[in-house]
């Protein structure tokens, strides 16, 4: 289905000029519910992603607590086998696809354009479409609980347990089509982010001046771009088996269940890096700011990220060491898995070196970031022990692995994301989170996490397999299981503290200045929260850590000296009220893309089609619903393509509509001056079409075509 729904169609077809007025005027509400539903502002979409993912986090967390309650004692009776299998399947699927990925997407959306000095992403409406597809995909998946049972085949859905013979219910169908929708959402947004980052950086921002978080966003986006189609294919094969009687995973017809495992893990392992790289990026932003030192070895951090991105494709078989693939394959993948630890280790040491001899302010974000280094290291080390593949035959499919990947995805990704949340909260909402509550949040989180997952190392080595709904007391596993359950509830308490902190900050409204942390990157140069147009004037970048260098120079000894009259940013320094006053003023004349209903409409077609596919398996007539969904999707896309931009006559010099007259494209490079001067979209340069290939990432792309302030 991906192929049917993929993005290029609307953009390529989006060729109707303005005078062809579309079906209706574009929505214009600046406030209220509708303004959120129709928004195409990357910042609002980022917030939507964040809030939605947090709600799914609560759902996945409740599932985790249920699992831990069931396992707290031997022969538990909280959940039956069926419920347990559904809950652990949904816990894994939720945390990977509905929590960590979209939480990262929230930051990609909100922060990346600000960091690179852009006013929005390349395709704002497509961005909104991604969000709605994600939301609908998640709701669709969760609706299975109400519609006869959630998926129960594990998040990895190994064939042939997922075939109709062994899973005749609809749970697996919900899982298959839910993931397809989520795959569309992430692929579309990956394209969007890649184009944004490669094309829309502020003048002077070469790739090697791009903030490290944006770099990790870029690498992650490429991984999503290339990994998603693989699982798309795997899921299609499975759904053809289930819906149309194909034989892909039917051993009786010669089909090989191991093919599923290969496809799943060729996607699944890069997916791990999709989950962890953004968090690494966040930590790499937080550590320098609170150490008052630049990131140690920025180029090495970038290239180790790229190295991880590449090597991540060559290690998938380490998920399959017990499959019996033969000594050659197992040896090769043991080696590749060991050596992916090298670039990861480099990052860890570089982070420590960043803090070394710095001036460390142990704020909440900094605590989470340092907690990340400590916890992620443990996950990395247990990862190396997996690479010792003979012994992995003891470890795999036990709680040792559960411990390992929670140290990576919770101790890593979620610690990093929490650091990011506490770090960027003031920027996004313009209010400060409470530091004391934040520290309580961190310490309970840290202790709870280690109590919950530390003992799992032992449990696994003591022979407790994964995915068991019960275990006998004769196995001697009760003590550490109880400890783990206590830890899980400690984390739950910590999450409550976090939510209370948020609630309190909204109550108290402690205004955040533009740059509360004395930070280094461009997003801190504008007011908190940023105006809807982001930058009144597109900044020109002269250095890595541009904003820092506007505030500080270095003396002979290499120590920072505050610039007397900082060219700061538009945010003023410490006077948030002041910012509020001139918002409207400044923003006047900056034309931002108009809101639109159609991303929502188009995305709504996806779950409709998915329901049709789910029920089509049991009754052929339901395939009509698929057609209905396709019609909604296409109608949405068509209306989208025909949509007039609002107030076409009110052109201005800041923003330029694409040739298509459609998807509004902001010219990131070249300030207003260039535009005024050049008259027409500074049309002059435009590198030759150059046959296509995207640029060499090492080449400072920004330097090239960007008109360096060629103003009058």
């Amino acid at each position, binding site marked *: 289905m991906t192929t049917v729904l993929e993005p290029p169609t609307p953009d390529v077809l989006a*060729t109707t000029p303005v005078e062809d007025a579309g079906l209706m005027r574009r929505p214009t509400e600046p406030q209220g519910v509708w303004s959120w539903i129709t928004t195409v502002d990357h910042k609002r979409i980022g917030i939507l992603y964040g809030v939605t993912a947090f709600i799914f986090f609560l759902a996945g967390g409740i599932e985790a607590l249920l699992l831990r309650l069931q396992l707290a004692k031997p022969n538990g009776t909280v959940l039956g086998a069926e419920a347990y299998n559904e809950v652990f399947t949904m816990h894994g699927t939720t945390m990977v696809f509905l929590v960590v990925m979209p939480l990262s997407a929230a930051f990609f959306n909100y922060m990346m354009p600000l960091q690179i000095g852009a006013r929005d992403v390349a395709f704002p409406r497509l961005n909104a479409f991604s969000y709605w597809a994600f939301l609908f995909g998640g709701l669709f998946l969760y609706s299975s609980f109400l519609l006869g049972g959630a998926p129960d085949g594990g998040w990895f859905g190994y064939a042939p347990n997922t075939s109709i013979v062994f899973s005749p219910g609809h749970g697996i169908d919900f899982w298959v089509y839910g993931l397809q929708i989520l795959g569309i959402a992430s692929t579309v947004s990956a394209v969007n982010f890649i184009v944004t980052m490669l094309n829309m950086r502020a003048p002077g921002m070469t790739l090697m001046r791009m903030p490290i978080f944006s770099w990790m966003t870029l690498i992650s986006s490429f991984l999503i771009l290339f990994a998603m189609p693989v699982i798309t294919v795997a899921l299609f094969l499975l759904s053809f088996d289930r819906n149309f009687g194909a034989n892909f995973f039917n051993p009786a017809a010669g089909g090989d269940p191991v093919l599923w495992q290969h496809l799943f893990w060729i996607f699944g392992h890069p997916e791990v890096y999709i989950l962890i790289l953004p968090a690494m990026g966040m930590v790499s932003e937080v550590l320098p700011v609170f150490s008052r030192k630049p990131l140690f070895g920025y180029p090495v951090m970038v290239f180790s990220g790229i190295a991880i991105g590449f090597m991540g494709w060559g290690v998938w078989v380490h998920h399959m060491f017990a499959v019996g693939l033969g000594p050659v394959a197992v040896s090769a993948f043991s080696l590749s898995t060991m050596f992916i630890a090298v670039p990861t280790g480099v990052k860890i040491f570089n982070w420590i070196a960043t803090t070394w001899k710095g001036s460390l302010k142990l704020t909440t974000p900094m605590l989470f970031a340092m907690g990340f280094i400590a916890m992620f290291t443990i996950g990395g080390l247990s990862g190396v022990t997996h690479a010792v593949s003979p012994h992995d035959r003891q470890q795999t499919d036990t709680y040792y692995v559960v411990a390992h990947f929670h140290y990576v995805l919770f101790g890593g990704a979620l610690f990093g994301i929490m650091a990011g949340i506490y770090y960027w909260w003031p920027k996004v909402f313009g209010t400060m989170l409470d530091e004391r509550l934040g520290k309580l949040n961190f310490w309970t989180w840290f202790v709870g996490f280690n109590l919950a997952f530390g003992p799992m190392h032992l449990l696994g080595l003591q022979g407790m397999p994964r995915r068991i709904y019960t275990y006998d007391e004769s196995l001697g596993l009760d003590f550490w299981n109880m400890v783990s359950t206590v830890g899980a509830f400690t984390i739950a308490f910590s999450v409550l503290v976090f939510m209370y902190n948020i609630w309190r900050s909204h109550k108290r409204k402690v205004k955040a200045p533009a740059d509360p942390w004395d930070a280094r990157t461009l997003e801190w140069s504008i007011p908190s929260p940023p105006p809807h147009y982001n930058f009144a004037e597109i900044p020109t970048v002269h250095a890595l850590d541009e904003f820092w260098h506007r505030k500080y120079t270095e003396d002979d000894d290499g120590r920072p000296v505050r610039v007397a009259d900082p060219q700061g940013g538009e945010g003023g320094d410490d006077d948030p009220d002041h910012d509020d006053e001139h918002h409207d003023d400044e923003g006047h004349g900056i034309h931002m893309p108009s809101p639109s209903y159609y991303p929502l409409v188009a995305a709504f077609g996806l779950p409709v089609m998915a329901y049709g596919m789910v029920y089509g398996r049991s009754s052929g007539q339901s395939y009509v619903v698929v057609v209905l969904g396709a019609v909604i999707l296409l109608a949405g896309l068509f209306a989208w393509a025909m949509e007039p931009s609002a107030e076409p006559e009110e052109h201005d010099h800041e923003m330029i509509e694409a040739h298509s007259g459609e998807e509004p494209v902001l010219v990131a490079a070249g300030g207003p001056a260039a535009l005024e001067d050049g008259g027409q979209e500074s049309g002059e340069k435009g590198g030759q079409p150059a046959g296509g290939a995207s640029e060499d990432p090492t080449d400072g792309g920004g330097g*090239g075509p960007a008109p360096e302030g060629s103003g009058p």
Partner: protein
Amino acid sequence: MATKEKSLAHEEPVTPAPEHHHATNTGLSNEKLAMWAFLGSECLLFGALISTYFLYRGRSVSGPTPEDVYDIPYTSVSSFVLLMSSLTMVLALAAIQRGDYRRLRIWLLATALLGASFIAGQVYEFTSFIREGLTIKTNLFGSSFFVLTGFHGVHVTLGIVMLLSLWNLSLRGSLTQDRSEVVEIAGLYWHFVDVVWIVIFTVVYLVK
């Protein structure tokens, strides 16, 4: 050839520029870069499908086998037809870059028609296979053959829809020389689908 949109946006007369780009970091327009990224993703999609077909070659436990049903000369002709459509696509792009809208429409239509004859050929091939007793359910070969070529067929069909939309826009006069990039982007997609077919034809039909 200034459209209304442009004359609204700019007081000065617009000089026609065959290759007209925004000042982006890469020099490629956002739309074109997006298409390249998307095609990169598509490579993995077809890569996975083709690998599946390849892995399952000769593993079917019952017939019909490829040798039983393939009609290589027939498929060669339809492959040739699809290849020719890449040529007409190039001609369409050349035409709009020259500002020759009549030829643009002719070549767009020709491309779409060639694509449509390919699809018609595929539909005929599918039905004749089914008549010979090969369906998606029959064996592994049936499953992997229909899914792989079917996916490609859907891609070609989408391309045809794209081409016809461009043709329609041109008829209404809204596809102008300065927007030739739209045709170029559609062309990227079309050529990609053609190249994929060459691989499929080789792997599926020719390799023994």
